[in-house]
């Protein structure tokens, strides 16, 4: 005979307005195994909790049911409460008679009370099969991995490193810096992007706690929070980093020219190169796809001219495995491919360029040394048209979402044109102007007033070429009439989209992403930098389009979360995890595939059958990885997996309580 105590909460009037709480408590008194039952106005309050503790001691209760709100709200409160009274905290159940009863049935007290009684009975039936569970602990590796070396990754790494932990940054390209290194000026203050970024790049490279692993990619991730084993592929640089001094002789002598990725194809780089002059590390890599030594087996000039003898064509990709306590994803974004819009002629008309190309054209270190010139004929444009929402807010050809940054960077670019070319005119086609940041609306107002940008509300229908001019066709929806604007250059504010391999990487590390390939935060408001996978955090635009201030803020937040995790000597793990009855398990592996946390693997066991020892495969749950979702238990055909605290027996007892009356 169990001794269950039932405590019905009024939640002020939240529950009591449509549930007769006293009647619930009274009815439950006669239910099997219930030794004590009462109701109270606020069960979570201090006197409410005292009431529970007192009843446990005086009535000798061995398990407790509280009928109140959602377990999300107060499960921990009451678990602590029963633990303080000497019970195992898992000898407790909650019946949600608020969100799932009183709030959804506000007008029918009789039925709502009946339902509350049912919910209470179910909880009592379940609690009878509760067993004491103990939390277990796992160790923590005090080292963090940051994937991505843009401003998000750099800031996260610096913050973690300054908190005293070792961080590795894995960056895919030959240099850290990311998109921010390509941008000319930053809104709303018009700081030079490089001037505020490069000091951070230098800090990251010289910080004793930060290791830069550039030209490398994450290959494999195993393990769990506190102990991720990450395999990193260090791509062959063909340059011995320990010998190279970054003198630049090699790339000045290299005969092979390749369109520069950093300059978005608007100028050439060599086959042995650093992406840009301020690159960190400032040591080159050989682009094996274009290098004559690798394509045709000839040349070898770089090797001959290198004074340090650092060129080594035999270097191969190297795989290294490191253990990390936490991972921060800071993999950034890509820009929408505007050539999808045939009507804008991007890729067809040389003077229709993307916003990022504009940044390079107006940047003092860019292909035109900061003189804004048309790609077609090198003339200075007098009429510049900007088109916003290229790829954003377009369910047909682009993305449904708003890219958040384009309104501001377009306003910034419009002011830069007016600043550099005094007799220029700028036209901005927009659908809405969204300026939700500090100083942003003011910046936009300056763009229209002081810099006299002509904002025209409407999407551009098409761009045609008339001689050496472009004709931009649109509608001024505020006047309700079509307009044509003659332009020397058109700049497309392309949407921020996720990296093409973002989903692949998420699957590799083991966390979720949304339909657009952006990484999903654990809670949009209350856990914006966490993922659903413990120990994996997010920073920057990989989580969704955002600007530099927001990215830096998020990076700082992620760093704090990582630091908090790494500061612990051991991690508590929830005991309500799945366990496999290996005798019964047929080793089909369905659970292995269904598990979203990759907590289940097949292991080989030895068994004696009819006097012979045989080997067979069975499922095994890593309890540190298991998050207790229960997906495996419903998948298992032989009911060999059971989730502690939610056993089949318990679920059936609940069903019986509801149906066998």
């Amino acid at each position: 005979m169990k001794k269950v105590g039932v405590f019905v909460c009024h939640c002020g009037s939240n529950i009591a307005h449509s549930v007769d709480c006293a009647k619930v408590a009274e009815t439950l008194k006669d239910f099997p195994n219930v030794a004590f039952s009462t109701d109270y106005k606020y069960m979570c309050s201090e006197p409410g909790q005292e009431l529970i503790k007192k009843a446990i001691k005086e009535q000798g209760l061995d398990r407790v049911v509280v009928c109140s709100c959602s377990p999300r709200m107060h499960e921990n409160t009451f678990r602590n409460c029963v633990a303080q009274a000497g019970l195992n905290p898992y000898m407790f159940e909650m019946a949600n008679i608020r969100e799932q009863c009183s709030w959804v049935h506000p007008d029918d007290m009789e039925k709502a009370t009946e339902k509350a009684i049912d919910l209470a009975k179910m909880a009592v039936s379940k609690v009878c099969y509760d067993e004491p569970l103990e939390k277990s602990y796992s160790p923590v590796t005090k080292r963090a991995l940051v994937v991505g070396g843009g401003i998000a990754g750099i800031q996260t790494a610096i913050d973690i490193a300054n908190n005293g932990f070792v961080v590795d940054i894995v960056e895919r390209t030959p240099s850290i810096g990311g998109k921010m290194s390509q941008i000319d000026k930053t809104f709303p203050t018009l700081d030079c992007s490089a001037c505020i970024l490069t000091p951070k790049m230098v800090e990251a490279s010289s910080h004793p706690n930060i290791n830069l692993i550039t030209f490398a990619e994450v290959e494999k991730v195993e393990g769990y929070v506190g102990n991720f084993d990450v395999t990193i592929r260090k791509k062959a640089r063909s340059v011995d980093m320990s010998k190279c001094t970054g003198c630049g002789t090699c790339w000045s002598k290299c005969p092979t020219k390749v369109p520069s990725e950093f300059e978005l194809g608007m100028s050439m780089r060599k086959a042995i190169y650093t992406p840009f002059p301020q690159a960190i590390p400032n040591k080159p890599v050989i682009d094996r796809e274009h290098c004559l030594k690798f394509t045709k087996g000839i040349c070898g000039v770089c090797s001959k001219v290198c004074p340090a003898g650092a060129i080594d064509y035999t270097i191969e990709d190297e795989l290294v495995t490191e253990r990390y306590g936490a991972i921060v994803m800071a993999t950034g974004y890509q820009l929408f491919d505007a050539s999808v819009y045939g009507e804008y002629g991007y890729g067809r008309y040389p003077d229709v360029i993307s916003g990022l190309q504009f940044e390079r054209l107006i940047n003092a270190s860019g292909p035109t040394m900061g003189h804004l010139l048309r790609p077609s004929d090198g003339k200075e444009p007098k009429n510049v048209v900007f088109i916003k929402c290229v790829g954003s807010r377009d369910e047909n050809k682009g993305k449904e979402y708003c890219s958040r940054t384009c309104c501001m960077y377009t306003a910034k670019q419009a002011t830069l044109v007016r600043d550099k070319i005094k007799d220029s005119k700028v036209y901005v086609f927009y659908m809405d102007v969204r300026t939700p940041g500090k100083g942003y609306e003011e910046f936009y107002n300056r763009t229209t007033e002081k810099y006299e940008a002509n904002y025209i509300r409407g999407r551009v229908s098409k761009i045609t070429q008339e001689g050496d001019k472009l004709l931009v066709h649109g509608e001024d929806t505020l006047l309700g009439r079509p307009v044509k604007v003659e332009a020397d250059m058109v700049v497309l504010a392309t949407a921020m989209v996720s990296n093409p391999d973002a989903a692949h990487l998420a699957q590799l590390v083991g966390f979720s992403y949304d339909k657009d390939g952006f990484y999903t935060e654990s809670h949009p408001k209350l856990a914006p930098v966490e993922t659903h996978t413990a120990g994996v955090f997010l920073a920057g635009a990989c989580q969704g389009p955002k600007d530099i201030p927001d990215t830096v803020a998020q990076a700082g937040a992620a760093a704090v979360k990582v630091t908090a995790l790494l500061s612990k000597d051991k991690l508590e793990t929830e005991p309500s995890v799945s366990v496999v009855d290996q005798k019964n398990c047929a080793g089909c592996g369905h659970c292995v595939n269904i598990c979203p946390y990759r907590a289940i693997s097949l292991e080989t066991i030895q068994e004696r059958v009819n006097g012979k020892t045989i080997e067979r495969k069975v499922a095994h749950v890593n309890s540190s990885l298991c998050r207790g979702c229960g997906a495996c238990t419903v998948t298992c055909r032989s009911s060999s997996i059971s989730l502690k605290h939610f056993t089949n027996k318990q679920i059936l007892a609940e069903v019986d309580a509801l149906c066998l009356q």
Partner: protein
Amino acid sequence: MTLNELQQQGAMATETLEKLSQVEARKCYQCGKCSAGCPVAEYMDIMPRQVMRLVQLGLTDEALKSKAIWLCATCDTCSTRCPRNVDIAHEMETLRILAKRKGIVGEKDIDKFHNVFLDMVKKFGRVYEVGLIVGRNVTTGKLFRDVNYGLPYLSKRKVHLLPEKVKAKDEINRIFAKAEEYALKELKEAENK
């Protein structure tokens, strides 16, 4: 015609308007609060917001042709309520001055009414209602308009048959002379610069 060409065409008028009115039309963010509160908006051909849009886009010539600027009663509701502190009513008035000077008057009857009204004030120092009504009806060619109101108004002594004059006629003349001189000077300056 492209927007660039239209702007080029209207550049002179736009510049004159800016100088004369000192209204920063570019500040207008087209929320439409002016049109929403305007008591005569429903009789206008384009909304006050659109007048501002034409002006801020540099299509001033077109704003000058609109009827809306003539229907505006200068009640100032728009200017009082504008969240961007744009003095729309003043812009309307300035547009009327420019339109008249250019000889493009979108609503001739209203212009005639203004003329008769000012004539009365100039002559008598205050409004002479009967004169105003007769003057308007004669100049607009609608002789019997509102005539049925005449007798009741007269019999209840709401209007007087003969004009009343103010004593300080000289001062009135001086005010008019000064105003005309000043307005003309300002206008010329704005046009010449």
